[in-house]
């Protein structure tokens, strides 16, 4: 580099003396570049009380308002939770909970009255919650076959090894295979039989429960004594991508029964997968309750979206203040693992459900920062100057 530039200069001006041998005379002198000499321009922050002070105060000043905002937002969210496990003798579901066989043919129903002390605006989300249910268990999480759920015909007949030991039953492939599907909590009642229908709410019928899963029904007890079933939508509760991309029925053929020919239902199920719903857009693998269940929860205490109670119009709250009844078809045994079952009604905000934690966390961290900032300020004033001189003495 040096040599070449030097030569170039020569050619500009005078006759070059050095011949072709010039190259061999090249000095091995290292190049004087900032990089090679490790002199790149750099920002060198020094962490002392004086220099970091502003950072602490700024963080404090930013975090505390954010925290307050979050806290307020979270507090504005209305949430109602009811535990219907029935561990207490007094609980309406106590009787049902005693029967924890997977194979009982008779559904057990219990009715839990409750009171909402404030009206719920906007869409209300109805969740079912489970505690102590380790849906995140390593072997449990793995126990599924995504290609099968994606409608792959080959996988339908030959479930992946991951599904073992829930891949085959009586030499027939299980659809959907795996432990997750097998332990599904909530299923859609199908094949409705004669059940009472309520005047204006025809969307959903209470049927004979053939699936293992619990079914929740919500009724508004009118002050005048009538029991009005709350209309709930069962669609839109799963991720859009799940419903439309990840989960697919083997064919678009409406006749799912034919499609699932040759497979068998999961062992714990009472009905095959193609009988989950009457609506062909919500049946088979693309049944949204099924999809929601298949998205395994992160923590042993979790809730899953069950229904959405859509807002009717802007004038009337979605759920009025008053007495309600929750009718539970109690199928799912949780006593074996000390589990709890809950029903949750909640509105949501932009930051999701009710959770004051984040607001509190922001306020706390902000305050701590502020406090530390003050401490640093004191330190800086007391020791900052003195030390600089002492340092140099060292």
């Amino acid at each position, binding site marked *: 580099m040096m040599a070449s530039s030097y030569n170039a200069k020569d050619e500009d001006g005078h006759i070059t003396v050095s011949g072709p*041998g010039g190259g*061999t005379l090249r*000095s*091995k002198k*290292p190049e004087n570049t900032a990089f*090679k*000499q*490790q002199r790149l*321009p*750099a920002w*060198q*922050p*020094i*962490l002392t*009380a*004086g*220099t970091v002070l502003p*950072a602490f105060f700024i*963080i404090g000043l930013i975090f505390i308002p954010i925290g307050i905002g*979050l806290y307020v937002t979270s507090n504005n969210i209305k949430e109602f939770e009811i535990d219907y496990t029935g561990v207490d003798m007094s609980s309406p579901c106590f009787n049902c909970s005693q029967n924890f066989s997977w194979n009982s043919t008779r559904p057990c129903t219990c009715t839990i009255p409750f009171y909402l002390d404030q009206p719920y605006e906007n869409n209300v989300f109805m969740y079912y919650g489970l505690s102590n*249910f*380790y*849906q*995140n*268990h390593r072997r*449990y999480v793995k*126990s599924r076959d995504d290609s099968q759920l*994606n409608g792959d015909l080959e996988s339908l007949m030959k479930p992946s*090894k*991951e599904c073992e*030991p829930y891949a085959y039953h009586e030499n027939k492939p299980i659809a959907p295979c795996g*432990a997750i599907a*097998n332990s599904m909590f909530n299923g859609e009642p199908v094949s409705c039989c004669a059940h009472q229908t309520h005047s204006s709410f025809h969307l959903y019928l209470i049927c004979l429960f053939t699936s293992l899963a619990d079914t929740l029904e919500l009724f508004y007890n009118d002050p005048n004594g009538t029991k009005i079933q709350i209309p709930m939508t069962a669609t839109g509760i799963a*991720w859009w*991508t799940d419903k439309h*991309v990840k989960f697919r029925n083997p064919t678009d053929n409406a006749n799912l029964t034919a499609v699932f020919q040759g497979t068998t239902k999961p062992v*714990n199920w009472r009905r095959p997968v193609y009988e989950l719903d009457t609506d062909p857009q919500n049946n088979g693998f693309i049944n949204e309750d099924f999809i929601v269940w298949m998205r395994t*929860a*992160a*923590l042993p205490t*979790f809730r*899953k979206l069950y229904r959405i109670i859509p807002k009717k119009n802007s004038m009337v709250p979605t759920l009025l203040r008053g007495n309600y009844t929750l009718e539970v078809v109690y199928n799912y045994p949780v006593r074996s*693992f000390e589990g709890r079952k809950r029903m949750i009604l909640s509105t949501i905000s932009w*930051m999701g*459900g009710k*959770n004051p934690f*984040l607001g509190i966390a*922001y306020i706390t*961290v902000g305050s701590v*920062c502020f406090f*530390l900032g003050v401490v*640093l300020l004191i330190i*800086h004033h007391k*020791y900052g100057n*003195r030390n*600089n*001189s002492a*340092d*140099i*003495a060292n």
Partner: protein
Amino acid sequence: MARESEDAGMAKASKVKRQKKKKTKENKTRTVQANILYDNAKGEENPNRHYANNKIKTTKYTVLSFLPKNLFEQFHRFANVYFVFIALLNFVPVVNAFQPELALAPVVFILSVTAIKDLWEDYRRHRSDKEINHMDCLVYSRVERRYVEKYWKEVRVGDFIRLRCNEILPADVLLLSSSDPDRLCHIETATLDGETNLKQRQVVRSFFDLDCDFDPLKYNSVIECEKPNNDLNRFRGYIIHRSGRRDALYKENLLLRGCTIRNTEEAVGIVIYAGHETKAMLNNNGPRYKRSKLERQMNVDVFWCVIILLVMCLFAAVGHGLWMFQYGDKRPVFDVLSPEGTDLSPIMSAIYLFLTMIIVFQVLIPISLFVSIEIVKICQVYFIHQDMDLYDEETDSHLQCRALNITEDLGQMQYIFSDKTGTLTENKMVFRRCTVAGVEYSHDANARRLAMYQEMDSEEEECTSHGGTLPRRDSVTSHQSAPVVLRSQSTKSHRRTGSRAEAKRASILSKHTAFSSPMEKDITPDPQLLDKVNECSSQMDFMRFHSQPMSQLPSDLSDIIDFFIALTICNTVVVSSPNQPRQKVRMRFELKSPVKTIEDFIKRFTPSRLTSGSNSSSSSSLITNRSSNKGCSSMLSSPSAESTLTKLDEERPPRGLDHAFSPVPPCYDGKAWDKEEGELRYEAESPDEAALVYAARAYKCSLVGRLPDQVTVELPHLGKLSFELLHTLGFDSTRKRMSVVVRHPLTDQITVYTKGADSVIMDLIKPPNTGNSKGKRQKKIVYRTQNYLNLYAADGLRTLCIAKKILSKDEYACWLQRHLEAETAIQGREELLFESALRLETNLQLLGATGIEDRLQDGVPETIASLRKAGLQIWVLTGDKQETAVNIAYACKLLDPEEEILTLNADSQEACALLLEESLHYIQAKFLCSSTDQAAKAFHTNFAPFEIYPSSSPSSSSSHTVPFMVHRLGLVIDGRTLAYALDKSLEDKFLAVARSCRSVLCCRSTPLQKSMVVKLVRNKLKVMTLAIGDGANDVSMIQVADVGVGISGQEGMQAVMASDFALPRFRYLQKLLLVHGHWCYSRLANMILYFFYKNAMFVALIFWYQFYCGFSGSAMIDQWYLIFFNLMFSAFPQLITGTLDKDVSAETLQQLPHLYVNGQNSEEYKPYMFWMNMIDAFYQSLVCFFIPYFAYADSDVDLFTWGTPITTLALFTILLHLGIETKTWTWMNWLSITFSIALFFTVALCYNASCPTCYSPSNPYWTMQRLLQDPLFYLLCAITPVAALLPRYFYRACQGTLFPSPVQVGRQLDKLPTEIRRNILSLSRVKVGSPLSPKPPFLSLAKPSPKGCNKKDQRSFPSSNTPPAKKGPVSQADEEKGQRSQVQPSDSVRSHSDLYTLVATEIDTLPYTKDAPTTLGGATASFNQSL
């Protein structure tokens, strides 16, 4: 070695098979016959076919063997085996945690990166091999009856090769013929040993007197020689002629591969060793691998990581067992059965889980750490290489890192062991003064001249212009272009001769002119001595003219002339002229061979006088051995005694006194000799030889030519005299002297001139007969000379004694006979020759002595002072005599005139023990007081109790690093005493004494002792040692030390070859250690700690999760992130920081050397820091886990939608953590961090969008995309890193203010404007004596200590008992800031010194942060006033 035995084995097998006549001798020797005899025969017949051919292959792999071999090598590393084991474990269904194929990815990645690196290196080797193999050389072909061009790789053992001037030898060749009339061939061995002087090689004696050209077709001898070995200086064997006669072969007959033919038009030889069996290749070792201290420490912590890992796994396993147990028989639905549908007992599950957890937590053992460290080290080496300050313009060489993996050790050195000659000094010997016949000639003018050079040097330093050194060289030779071209050629050619290392070495030396700066050459003669020389020679001229015997010369005059003749001829200097670079100057007067045979001697010296029976019988018996074939034309013959004799008879004119000094010879090639004379160049093997020759030349007694058999000297008035050179007994370190035996042309006496170390020569002086006047005079001379010698030594000069001895013919004959026996002996030749030399060098007559100055290298005192301030103990181990060594030590400020010196000279073990005991008591008694109150005293008096381990908290440091006081004491010990002291029984005491001394000087130590001292200190004190040296005698020391540094100076390259780092100059050590060492250490230490932190933090996240997933080994972090987190997402920033981070600027590090203590005490990476980091990692991971945990508690979040934010948070936290630890933010840091984050999101987005059904079990389809739309995600990203890093950030800030480490102070200094900084730094130098005393000094000022020791050092002005030692550092400080203290009356130094300290202290208490520069200015002003 394996190859050799294989060869031998093969050869043997074939021999046995064919029942040939040769027997098992094959095992020890190699037999070489000419190939051309077998050219027609089939390959099987050729006896040489078993020897390796000349094709070299330095590659490790072939296309086929690469994979298995490389893998095999990589699995030597334990870590690799471990990771492969884990990856394989993943294939077991019961325990697997990830997709098995995916789990292999990191291991495969690491292995393949290493493999690619190996492959590339191997390919480069292959390329260079190919280039070398395809070089051309001339090989004799029987078919064509001439030499034909062939590739090097086609050369076989037994081939005849013709070599021309400046060609490189393709193989080890036995020299059979040379175009040189003396049958010599000169070679340059720079590529082998780095020595640039020419070496003479001789044609095999049997072919010596061949008149005509060598004809390969007539060659039919067989050569028996050693098996290939790597000893460059050894070759033994013999050649068996058809006639049955045997001639011995020596190393002088062998031309080694890689050398370059010089000065010889043509030479022919037979290939003895080829290819890999050549000595050059056998010497060619790869780079060395050492394990650094930091790495050892790191390995301990890796081990701890393993323990932590096992504990975590065990915990999880037990947890899982209990979790299973609590359900009892009621198996919950989520506890999936094993694939076979069987139910596992809790215990079995726990065991399986243990293995699973090992897989899940494997990241804790940092797989990429090892790779990252290697990458960082390579970058560090690159930067050290590129440092301009470590580049020496004069020799065009820069620092070489030969060991790639111990750069960080440079920052942790505690002891430096230095050679003196060539390391501290330049090894440029300059003649200073001499004494002849007891009269001293002081050479004042010469001294003045040298002083001038010194000034010039310092000026040159200030303005280091590009051409700064060129004028010098120009003065050496007016024809600059010619040598340069030649040298550049040689540089180029070196590149092909062998490995890259060889080429590197060669290029370093290519510009190196051997020992010929004008400073060494132009000696100003002492007028008095010059007059005497002139007078003497004119008298001799007169006497010669009048045919008077020379013995009539006054003895003092004859001594003088003898003295200079001895200086001129008693050496091995080769004369060359710059007009024909590297061409020997020839001045042939007559053809004579040196006395090599007894009959030759007889013929020359007798026939009349030497006829004793024994001699004649022996000579006749020798003669009878000889074959009778004469002449050379017919058959190749051995020269017979007769032929030599006839030749001599023919050529030699009748002998007489007047013929010996012939006039200017006829063959003289017409050039004006006198003009050129001044430009003769002397090529000496050692610089002091050259210095003496130049000195003699200044007295017009110049060496003009040297041939093997004669030396030509030009004397004033007398003209050219040629001395017949009978023998040269070369220098060796045991004898410490060399001698030449010549026939004096004037007196015709056989004279022995001996030159050697004074200690040995003085013992060999013939005890003068005090009876007569001559004897008295002799005695006086010896006495006076001894006095002067002592004076010289006190001046730091190297002394040499010159002596002579006149042999009578009988004595000579007697000695010669045994000498010849020794020379021809095949076994134990060296010993016999040694004894023979001892027999000759007795009863000498002392002529005089010389004092040669070995000038200190530039900047040595400063470097030593600054290294010492850096807390390094410097020991000098030298082979020089005590006085010289002590004086050099004073000169380079190793010893201080103010400090006491303990000198240990003992004659016996007991005496030595006693001495050590006494010294120990003395030290204890003397410094008892100081040790009680060291800190305060250290500051106030500058009377230096010097702490090696200052400010290291004793609790944290391990037991052996108890603070140990080093007093202001010097220890001088000589070789003999050292031998006693190094004895097992005394070594502890010796160490106890030595370590309490500030400097230790070991004189007269042998190479072995040097290495023993280093080993002792290293092993007993458990300190990091650095050995620096330049010569072969330092090699063992360099190898023993933790870090060996070689000076690529003038004494060849052995030291460099053995070293880990090679420096062009000693002073570069300062920057290498203080700056690069510090940086490398702190960078690597921080990086390693960060690595541990990072992995622990990441793994702990999963560990916390186990509490919420029934200890089932589940991970919320997607396996892809888990596996590639280390490898990709978080890898680059730490590499950049590890490579580029500078905690303190280079300038500050050099100006405040005690910042180096940081590395010595391992302050960046102490054992507790690992644990602190671990705790911090666990805390941070708790924050990173639980903030998302609570934020998402009891929500409908699914496993991986929850895990992905955690991964992101962890990444942010880890990067920000690095940000806190990064001290220097260049654009590369910013870029790398941005890149890491961008990479993570890009990969995550692509990965999450790629496949809706793959990547079981996480199946993260559209997760990231959804998260990015979720405000909660951003809220989490904002708060979590802040909360996680709050404690560390706060701690750093507090620590930076409340108890900043010296390094942090240095960093603060960096930020100040340059002006203020300079002021502060100059102030801080005042307190050199008390680096980093644990107590802040101003405190002790405020509270006067009642103790007596420092009472006098308070504000009061000096009392009478201020120790005189105080003067030293103060005056030193004055020097350093000359502009302040320029006018200072010397008598008031002391009072000022106290004032100085006082004022400086006051200033210390004033604030001068950057916002208060005015205050500082004021302080400085007041400071100036007070002076």
